[in-house]
Structures are given as C-alpha cells and as structure tokens.
C-alpha cells in the first residue's frame, strides 16, 4: 500500500477482497468464450455494490501529470458510486506484464477495465478472451465486441496555446518534448506549431523524443538541450513537469500538458493543455451499471474534458485575448486545420480547402513543415 494513496482505500480493499474471495470460490476461469447466443454480461444491469472497476495506469499516480489526472477520475467514480469497488495498478510496463496485469484484473472479478494509456495488443489479447468484461483503452485504436477507446482531442487546446507561443517567442524557435514519435505526439507538435505559425509563419519547432512518458531526468536534459539551441518557448507531452523547471532556470516560457502547473514555476508558466476525465469515467461506469455501455471510440472535446488552463501571470493581456478569441471560435465549431498543410519533407499532406477530421488528426504520423526532430 502506497503511503501517498488516497484515504479510504483500506476499506475498499478489504471489502473488495471479500468479494474477490467469493468470485474465486465460484470458479472463475479464463478464458471463457461467450457463445453467440449468450449476451455479454455488460449488457445486463449491474448492482453498484457488485461492481469492480479496474484501472491500469502507465505511471505512478503521484506523477503530477497524466496518471494523477486519471487517478482524479478514479476518485470521482468513487465519490459518485461509493458502494462499488475500484482497483488500480500503477506503472504498468509496456511488456507482456501488461497482459498479465489486465488478466489479473479479470481474474479478480472486474467487470470494467480501463487502460489509461495505449497498451495495444496487450489489452486486446486479454479483452478477446474475456468477452464478459468491458474494456476501454485511452489513446487506443481498436473497437471490438467489448473493447473501445477514448482520447482527448487535445490539438485544439494545443493550437490555442500555439497562438500564444507564436506571439511570445523572441527567437522564433519553439522547443517540444515528446515521449515517442507516435500520433498523439505528432498531433500535439503539429497543432502547437500551426497555431504559432498562424500569427508568424516563420516560426519553427525543434522536437526531442526521450523514449519515456515519465523520466524527469531525461526530460530535464532534453529541455536544457533545447534551451541551448535557442528555443525560448518549451512545450510538449510529458507526464510530469520537469521541463517547466528548466524554463524557470533559463528564463524561458513554457506551456504544459495534463493539468494546471502554475505552482511549479509561475514566472515561466504560460498555460497547459488541461485534462479532466472525471465526467467521462463517471458516465462510463453509469452506463455499465445500467447495462447500456457500448464499445466505441470517443473523443473528449474542447470544453468537455480538455481545455487550456488559465493563463499564467506573465502572459500579456493582448496575447491572452488573441488566443482566447480563437478558443471562442473553435467552441463555436471552427476547425483551424484547413489545408494546404505540408509536412516537413515538403510533401502536401492536407490539400487546400480540405479539413481533416479528428480521427485523421488522431492518426497523424507526420510532422508539419517547420518541425525538426520528428520524421
């Protein structure tokens, strides 16, 4: 049991274990294939006191970022449904161990499993063999009979912050920190730079990927390297706030991700792509209990789970106003990613007049012109 864990978990665990022992006694076995005639269990209503909801987090819930935001969602579920049981595992590795952990969730009687990051085959292999359990994968791609995905359409917030970046940078070079060259990282980098270029087309972006979502040391080194290369505005997708501290030390500006991080460095803080999964998780669990849950892919959109955080004290009034004007337009239905958009090899990716869908952006695997460090 972690020291920093939320209060009241003890009670949950004990009660849950008793429930678990019952499930074990009733001879729960894996795999159990539902025949066509059978209806999966999640189609039927479920009593709150019988429900077990499991969460697999990619980092520690004390990471101050991504996993913490999801853990807030877990707490929201507990507040909304005090009689159900939640279980979670932190720092689920990207290896076959992930499969084992998800299988163990099922073995312990979970009716619904959330992977709060993309685990791909590791979760799909489990969900295929446990058709009675509802699976949701954050940043996933698969929709099967009992597996869906959800993600935040964060690129709108990134675009708004990009406008502020474009107005505030002196050197015209933005620094971007990412984990791996994957679609959400491309989407974030692209949207931020497009936002900046919308106010100053000559702005460029240097990106570094550090092969980890949570590695404060590597992030600090990468941010220092970006600062050394003349980037005066840092942004990115990391699960923790290390590069904000570098920005403070070097007198730069920084925009963050996951949640408001003003306290970590008010003088450098511009804003953050602020995420809130509370309502989403509560509604998913409500659907499950009601027997109305459906496996599908879902985006949390601007104003509904993702938004820019309140502007930091160092952001000039005029900048904030110009960026927020765009926010108002997007909330009214405007999509700022209309072609022509070229990638950083000069290839035309979005023809003139075409507006890519959220799903297209979600599957980005190229970087826009002006980005270096992402192929």
């Amino acid at each position, binding site marked *: 049991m972690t020291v920093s*864990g939320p209060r009241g978990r003890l009670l949950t665990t004990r009660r849950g274990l008793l429930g678990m022992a019952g499930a074990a006694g009733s001879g729960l*076995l894996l*795999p159990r294939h539902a025949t066509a005639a059978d209806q999966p269990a999640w189609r039927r209503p479920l009593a709150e006191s019988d429900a077990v909801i499991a969460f697999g987090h990619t980092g520690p819930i004390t990471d101050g970022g991504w996993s913490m935001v999801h853990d807030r969602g877990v707490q929201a579920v507990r507040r909304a449904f005090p009689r159900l049981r939640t279980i979670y595992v932190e720092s689920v590795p*990207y290896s076959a161990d992930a499969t084992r*952990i998800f299988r*163990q969730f099922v073995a312990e009687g979970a009716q619904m499993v959330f992977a709060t990051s993309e685990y*791909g085959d590791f979760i799909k292999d489990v969900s295929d063999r446990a058709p009675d359990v509802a699976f949701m994968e954050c940043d996933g791609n*698969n929709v099967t009979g009992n597996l869906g995905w959800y993600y935040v359409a964060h690129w709108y917030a990134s675009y708004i912050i990009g406008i502020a970046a474009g107005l505030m940078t002196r050197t015209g070079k933005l620094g971007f920190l990412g984990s791996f060259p994957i679609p959400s990282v491309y989407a974030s980098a692209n949207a931020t730079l497009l936002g900046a270029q919308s106010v100053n087309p000559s702005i460029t972006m240097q990106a570094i990927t550090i*092969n980890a979502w949570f590695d404060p040391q590597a992030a600090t080194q990468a941010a220092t390297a970006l600062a050394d290369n003349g980037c005066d505005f840092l942004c990115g997708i990391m699960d923790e706030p290390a590069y904000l501290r570098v920005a403070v030390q070097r007198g730069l500006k920084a925009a963050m991700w996951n949640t408001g991080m003003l306290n970590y460095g008010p003088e450098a803080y511009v804003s953050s792509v602020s995420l809130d999964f509370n309502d989403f998780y509560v509604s998913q669990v409500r659907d499950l209990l009601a027997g109305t849950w459906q496996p599908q892919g879902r985006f949390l959109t601007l104003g509904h789970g993702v938004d820019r955080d309140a502007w930091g004290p160092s952001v000039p009034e005029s900048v904030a106003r110009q960026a927020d004007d765009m926010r108002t337009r997007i909330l009214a239905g405007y999509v700022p990613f209309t072609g022509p958009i070229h990638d950083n090899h000069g290839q035309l990716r979005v023809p003139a007049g075409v507006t890519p869908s959220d799903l297209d952006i979600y599957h980005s695997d190229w970087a826009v012109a002006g980005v270096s460090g992402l192929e």
Partner: protein
Amino acid sequence: MATRAFQRLPTAPAGRILMLRLVAIILSLFIIACVLALSGHSPLMLAELIIHSTLGSRFGLEDLALFMCPLLLTGAAVTVCGTIGLWNIGAEGQFYAGAIAATGVALGVHGSALTVLPLMTIAGIVGGMAWITVPTLARAYAGVNEIITTLLLNFIASLLTYYLTTGPWRDRISGAQVSTQRISVSIPEMWGIVHWGFPVAIVIVIGLALVLSRTRWGYEIRIGGANPEAARYAGIPVRLRIISVMLLSGGLAGLAGMFEVAGTVHRLQGGMANNFGYLGIVVAVLARGSCLNVIPAALLMALILDSGIVMQTQQLSASVILAITGLILFMIAIGDELAHYRPLARTTPQGTAAGSKVS
C-alpha cells in the same frame, strides 16, 4: 586456542540446500505477512488470492508457464556460460538482438508460418549469437572481462530496439507506440495462452543438461570451468570451448527473444525484454549451476513475479513488490550460505593426536 562452533564446508549437500531454502522462503513469507498485516492488509486473504491466481487455477498456471518460457531460456543461457566459469550478464541484450532479428525476418519475409517461423527461429538464435560475438572474442583472445562487455551491450541493444520501433520499423498501421506492426505469424498456442515455445524451452533445457553430462564437449566444458589449468593440462582447447559456450549462451537468450516476439508479444516492442535477461542470472544462481535445476528455479522465479503482479492489483505499489522480491531472494541466498555450515563438535587438541600418530 580459539574454538569455533561451526565449520564451513566447500560443498553443501543438495538436500540441505533445499531444506534451508524452504526455511528461508517460509521465513520471508512470515516477515512479509507481518509487514502487510501492520499496514492494514489481510495476509491470509492475499495468500489465498495469490495461490488462486498462480498455482490454484488454470488461468494462473497459464500465466506461470508463459512467465517461465523466457526465464527457462535466459536461465539456461547464464547457466551454460557459468559451466565454463564465465558470467553472461548480457542475456538481456542478446534477448533483444534475437527479438530484433526474428522480427526483421517476420517483417521482411512473407509466407506461411511453416516457412517463416523456422526462419525466425534461426534469425533469433543467430541474432543472440551475433550480440555476444564481440565479448566472446574479446574474452577468448584478449582476456577482456566478459561481465562488463556483455552488460554494456545490453544498453545498446535496448536503445537499438527503441530506435527501430520508433523509427524505421515503427507501426504505421495502428500507430501503436514504441512498437512494430503486429507480425503475421505466431507460435501456435498449445494450452490457453501458453504457446508451444514453453514445451520447447523445457526440452531445450533438458537437452542441454544431457549435452553437458553426456557429451565429450560437455565434459570438456565442465573441466574448463572447474579448473582451466587442468583443462590445459589435459589438452582441452579451452579458448575454442569458451567461444562455443558463449555463442551457445547468446543463442539461447536470442531464442528467448524470438519466442517472446512470436509467442507472446507478437511485435518488437521497446522494453519487451522485461528484465528477463537479468532475471536469467537470478534463475541461474538459484539453479546453482545445474541445467536441470533451471526448471524449478524458473518456476520459483515465475511464481515470485506472478505473485508480484497479483499483489499490485491489491494496491501494493511496484516498489513494495520489488522490495518483497528482493527480500525472498536475499533470504534464499542466506539459506544457501548457511547450508555450507555444520556444527563442529569440540575436538581433542590436535597436537596430541598427531604427535602420537607419528612418534
């Protein structure tokens, strides 16, 4: 004259070691239970859950077998190298190299599983061998310590995997992070999620035990490991034997990587080695140099690891699990050491005995 109450023997009987290991495990479980009880968990319920989720259910047994498969091979890789007195700390890197080579074949060769799987197997073995080639030659011809060279290559192999899975080989189909696309062939499943790699690994370990005890090559390896000077005295080409053993060791670890790619993960993925290479060292230490012992040692290790996963779902953090794993292994190590001691009866002064004998 100071008299000691215990005497340390150079060898300890296997039965004694087994007994002391059991005592060590029971003792550490007791300590863990006390700590868990103090922190508000119910040790009995946890124990019941763990037993159910490992040995007590088909689901648990499947997981154990899947865990054992790579551990058997990396444990055998380290053990076989240890037979000639060398430490292959690089099974992790050779695992990756085998996985990379096998994935390369799977991505590049299109055909039925019957043609692709054997090619992947060969590629995996050769990949692992290639990864240990430089440490092998450095050891055999320049006497460079293999512990350091094999260890350092682990990091290179791991980073190479990250490079490939985020760069040239990254998944452009489903966009899975740090991963190649799903490969089209897989080792057939035998029992639930357990693939045929598991029985093959068992057969390989038994085969290795036979090779070491029943072939001329194995005999020469054993002599070379027990006393290189005696091996030279007997005219055994020690250098050639070192080369062959280290390559075999690398090949085994590479095969483990291939099995993991083709049987469990179905992709090349950054971090997929899951420390199996390093855990192979633990397995080899538990096996005390005997290939056959690798099987129960891998089972014990799999049990510990699998229990760790069960406990994580009971909100014990990963670092607590790591501490528990360390405690069990530490107690076993103490047990092994204590097995060498036996109480010493007070003897008569040696002088009078020896004096009377000679005069």
